[in-house]
């Protein structure tokens, strides 16, 4: 029991430190560069890609953060943007589904690539799979919500 508590405290500290060291810089960098031309160009380019799974320009930035850095950090930005301007449940649903399937594209993938997994299957195949699952689930959810509300 005592060692469990010890593990919990040590692990929590580790986790907190990691979230802190990633979340605070991400938020500061976002705040500083969100309005700048290069940042907007990147987001707009990314928005043109994720438009195909049903995400709008406003959801593009949180999705990009999640895609690159991880679900927790993308989730943090999603929560921030929900607070700032209502993204809409539909957009949050699509983002969550897509990011559930693929996130932290570099870090997570590299862990397995280092072990000998194929880059193609771990990266390209997974992104295609994520897009297909997102499209399918959004279609189902749309029908369900419509039926439920009717």
């Amino acid at each position: 029991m005592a060692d469990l508590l010890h593990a919990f405290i040590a692990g929590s500290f580790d986790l907190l430190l990691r979230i802190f060291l990633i979340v605070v810089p991400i938020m500061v960098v976002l705040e500083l560069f969100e309005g700048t031309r290069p940042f907007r160009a990147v987001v707009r380019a990314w928005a043109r890609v994720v438009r195909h799974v049903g995400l709008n320009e406003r959801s593009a930035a949180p999705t990009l953060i999640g895609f690159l850095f991880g679900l927790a950090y993308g989730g943090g930005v999603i929560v921030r943007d929900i607070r700032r301007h209502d993204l809409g449940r539909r957009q949050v649903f699509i983002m969550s589904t897509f990011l559930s399937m693929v996130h932290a594209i570099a870090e997570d993938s590299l862990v397995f690539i280092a072990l000998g997994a194929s880059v193609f299957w771990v990266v390209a195949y997974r992104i295609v799979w994520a897009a297909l699952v997102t499209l399918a689930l959004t279609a189902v959810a749309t029908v369900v919500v419509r039926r439920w509300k009717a």
Partner: protein
Amino acid sequence: MEHTGDDPTTARPAATPGPPSAAAAPGTASGEPSPQPAPGLGARLRRDLRIGVKAGLQTFWELARVMIPAYGVTLVLERLGVIQWLAHLARPLMSLFGLPGDAAVPVMVGYVLNIYAAVGSMQALHLSAREITVLAIAILIGHSLLVEGAVLHKAGMNGFAFGALRVVAGLAAAAVANLLMGLF
């Protein structure tokens, strides 16, 4: 409150304006485009920095509040031997993915703990490159279900439903990949 379509952008004037003042006061979602006299670069930097740090700390706190309890539950599940028990149950299913029964252990370790722990337990097994790839697909889609589910919950989604989705969709992706790899 139900939003079915894309939210109308009526609340905000532009697509990506500068840092809205709404950040300072959570809850006031529709920040009005308060007419500010164009501040100098230094003042603007300081203001953005302040808002950024504030948003960072707020997000940190929100994530910590849900992730730490989820992490605690994870540790207890591990200590109770739930991972081994789940792996034992899943053993016979592994042949569906062209994997040996032992591969159920890293999958369950990944679901409950995280991908690093999963990779650690993979190293104990002797797997071919193809088996590693198939296993990687399943684990990359479904992992850290409790902690990341807590984050999705924070975003207003059902963490359990998304956990289930990641398990099912991840295993399906692995099965399809295994079949496709067999063709080529």
